[in-house]
């Protein structure tokens, strides 16, 4: 259900940026969604019209996104691996110590209008 909160935050930020750039009607919003954020794309699609309806400048916008895989760098053996596929455990040395390289954020990449 946190898709709703994510969308509200996105809508507020996009509205602000649209105002700064004199865009009255945003036609497209493009996001990158990290796979560690637990977003269910279907819920995002379903909730978007509801949230967009409350922010006039994105009311008619189309929401597009791509999911960014979660990559980690093993602190112990330097392997780079997919965190979701391996449940955060290095497939080479089985260590849980790692740095998250990607997939840990949701970014507004661009808007059109």
């Amino acid at each position, binding site marked *: 259900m946190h898709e709703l909160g994510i969308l509200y935050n996105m809508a507020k930020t996009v509205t602000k940026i649209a105002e700064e750039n004199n865009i009255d009607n945003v036609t497209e919003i493009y996001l990158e969604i990290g796979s560690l954020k637990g977003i269910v794309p279907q819920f995002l699609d379903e909730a978007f019209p509801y949230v967009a309806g409350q922010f006039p400048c994105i009311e008619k916008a189309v929401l597009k996104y791509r999911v960014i895989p979660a990559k980690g760098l093993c602190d112990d053996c330097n392997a780079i691996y997919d965190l979701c596929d391996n449940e955060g455990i290095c497939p080479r040395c089985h260590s849980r110590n790692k740095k998250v390289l990607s997939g840990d954020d949701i970014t*507004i990449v661009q808007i059109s209008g």
Partner: protein
Amino acid sequence: MKDVKIIEIKKSIFADNDAEAARIREKLKTEKTFLMNMMSSPGSGKTTTLLRTIKDIDGKIKIGVMEADIDSSVDAEAIAATGTRSIQIHTGGMCHLDAGMTEQGLKELGTEDLDLVVLENVGNLVCPAEFDTGACKNVAILSVPEGHDKPLKYPLMFEKCQALLINKIDVMPYFDFDMNKVIEFAKMRNSEIEIFPVSAKTGEGFNEWENWLLNEVNQWNNN
């Protein structure tokens, strides 16, 4: 035909919230008020834990409480019955509080004369952990009936919290709950996390938890 403008942004959707949360912390620091964000599943005993904690430490520091729920004000009424200043925040269908809602709540509550404000977040182990509320410390409650595997299933919650209360230890004999395992799993997520096994019903373990809390309040407000 009107030209279409394309604006490159590359901005995290959490950026504005995080900036607002940092502003809240700065203001609280100046006011010498400590904000604790309390998170857990529904029914893990947040309000009961809070009621006992307030009863024990009320004379030592001045406390205010913000209760966040999707609907109803039963929790705020239970807190207000103790004489503690409290307000109810309705999230309007949202499963968590963000920094903006917290700031509105703090304004409504009035924090200048308070040493400690407790924010009882919406009961949920997933969403509240995603948003920085501006709290000085995050505390999670996990109760025995929920099972010792929860730090494995909800990693973010345990990563974001500085303290974890394992509540309802009085009913441990009736559940297959492994205390060593839950500590191991929570530390796996966050090696720095302080863990306090407690029973909000009997008061067991509350001395250690309250000492930690009072120490945190004191450090924030006096340094």
